[in-house]
């Protein structure tokens, strides 16, 4: 019984983790068909921003929930203005340019912060379930992920901003003909996506030691979750995060974490092959 609770919690954590690190990429991909391969580095920057702020004495929750998104949001804005906005519609070119950006950011961070890991302790203590010790912070991650998903869904569904966003997803011309400047909307979308990536990095920072190269661990999983999810931002991200999170953890528990990760990747291959438009290209077609 305790063991079952542990498994469930671990699965929920994995789903929450995947949803959290994918949210920023999902918005940018779902809305603008932009595949930002520097997404992992945005997450990494969020982590560094949080740790730097925490070490400067700022409250860690404030650092991860407020400072990290703002800092990375600004960086995202700069990137959009300088690089991305010239490449809209050219998916492959954007992938290549953002891959270059990711290398650039890794280089910059290595130059500034060096190659040794930095870390910050988790602010929430562990707890026990039966014989097992669980990390308490994991629950916080799950909570943030859940709140974020709900907030995003609410904004997209029920606010004017969300309506404009969903209109943009249908096409630039739709929005332009309604009187909104697509360039401005794209700029804001990319910035928000970056901010969400920063938030994810901030929240994850206490759990992992931070290295300039840690983005690589995030980008692959986020990438796979988003592309396999398909065009619908919330439904897509949640369905694939759910699938992958469950498979990863279940296989991990049955064997090793590495096999769990490989199982997840293999599942991604199968899904992509069977559903080239993503999960929400096939099921849940008209969801948000």
């Amino acid at each position, binding site marked *: 019984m305790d063991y079952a609770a542990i498994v469930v919690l671990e699965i929920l954590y994995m789903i929450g983790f995947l949803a959290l690190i994918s949210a920023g990429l999902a918005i940018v991909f779902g809305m603008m068909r932009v595949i930002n391969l520097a997404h992992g580095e945005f997450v990494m920057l969020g982590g560094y921003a949080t740790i730097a702020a925490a070490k400067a004495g700022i409250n860690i929750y404030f650092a991860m929930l407020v400072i990290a998104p703002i800092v990375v949001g600004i960086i995202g804005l700069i990137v959009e203005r300088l*690089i991305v906005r010239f490449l809209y519609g050219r998916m*492959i070119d954007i992938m*290549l340019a953002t891959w270059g950006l990711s290398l650039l950011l890794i280089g*910059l961070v290595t130059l500034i912060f060096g190659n040794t890991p930095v870390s910050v302790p988790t602010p929430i203590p562990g707890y026990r379930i039966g014989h097992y010790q669980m990390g308490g912070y994991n629950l916080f991650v799950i909570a943030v992920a859940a709140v974020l998903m709900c907030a995003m869904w609410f904004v997209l569904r029920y606010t004017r901003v969300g309506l404009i966003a969903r209109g943009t997803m249908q096409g630039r011309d739709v929005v332009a003909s309604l009187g909104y400047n697509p360039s401005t909307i794209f700029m804001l979308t990319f910035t928000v996506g970056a901010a969400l990536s920063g938030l994810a990095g901030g929240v994850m920072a206490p759990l992992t030691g931070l290295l300039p190269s840690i983005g690589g661990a995030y980008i692959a999983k986020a990438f796979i979750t988003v592309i396999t999810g398909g065009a619908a931002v919330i439904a897509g991200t949640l369905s694939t995060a759910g699938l992958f999170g469950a498979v990863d953890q279940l296989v991990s528990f049955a064997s090793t974490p590495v096999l769990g990760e490989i199982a997840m990747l293999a599942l991604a291959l199968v899904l992509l092959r069977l559903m080239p438009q993503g999960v929400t290209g096939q099921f849940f077609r008209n969801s948000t």
Partner: protein
Amino acid sequence: MTGAAFGIGRIHWQWLAALAVLLAALPLVSETNTPILLAVWALFALSLALMWGFAGILSFGHAAYFGLGAYTYAIASVNIGESTVPVLLALLVPALVAAIIGAMMFYGRISDVYLGVMTLVVTLILNRFMNATAGDAYKIGNARLGGFNGIPAFPTLNVPGDPKMEIYGTAYYYVVIACLFIAYLVARWILSSAFGRTLIGIRENEIRMELLGYNVPAYKTAIFSVCGAMAGLSGCLFANWAEIVTPSVFSLGTTAEVLIWVIVGGLGTLIGPMIAAVALGSLKLELGHQTLVDNSLVLGAILILVVLLIPRGFAPSFTLWRQRLAQAQVHRRQARGTRRRRIALQDVKQ
């Protein structure tokens, strides 16, 4: 339609011969260790340049076949002891894996972004798997996979049939250069054949080629497999140079670098990416000697600049290049015509 067509010019044999002579003479003036590595990278770049530039297949995980070639050689040579069969396997195994994965993707009509993702995932799987194979349990035959640390000691290249006669140093340099030249000529031969022209047609418009009766997935799988074998060969040659094989051969960094070489070198040419591989590879090695400027930073900046400065993306670049070629041909013809008219006028005047 013979000779120059479909954007493939004639081979300038005199330049090729001159280059061969230069490269043959290189060991007289410099050490061969670095040139070998650069040549291996050039071969790797060639394999992607052929597939991407001419067949239009962009793989984000070409390092998978590089790595498979390296690991296959190492594992096979540990088990067999002599190098001839391992080299052949280092060609066949990547070719076979590429054929399987390629068939899975192309017959499923996967293309563009999704192809990129799937190829990336394959490389990631190989990377994760190899990184986790530490311990005695993981071995193929006598070869322990070694996980993160890789396979450190395996018999390197020897003269076929005689395991005692090892090929290393300058002799190995000549082997690598020979492989590079042969691969280049094979690539050119493919491109000037009907098969190659069909691939170019497929790159231009897959649907139309299908409507003309070509089995497009079969063609794509075939070239994917051939380029996988070529990448495998470069991986095998790399393994013999490094004398150790680690999971970094499957890294995102490796796959990113080869993409950058092809883009910077010029998508739609074979020579360009090879030169870029040598140039950027040398740059990377130089940067590795100092810590002031980070290699990633430079590579990243170069990639961004190249993408931004090539207007309207890469596909039209090929067309623009061909237009210039066509215009040059027209000018040449006009010049010839003018000369002929001048001569004719002279005759008349006589």
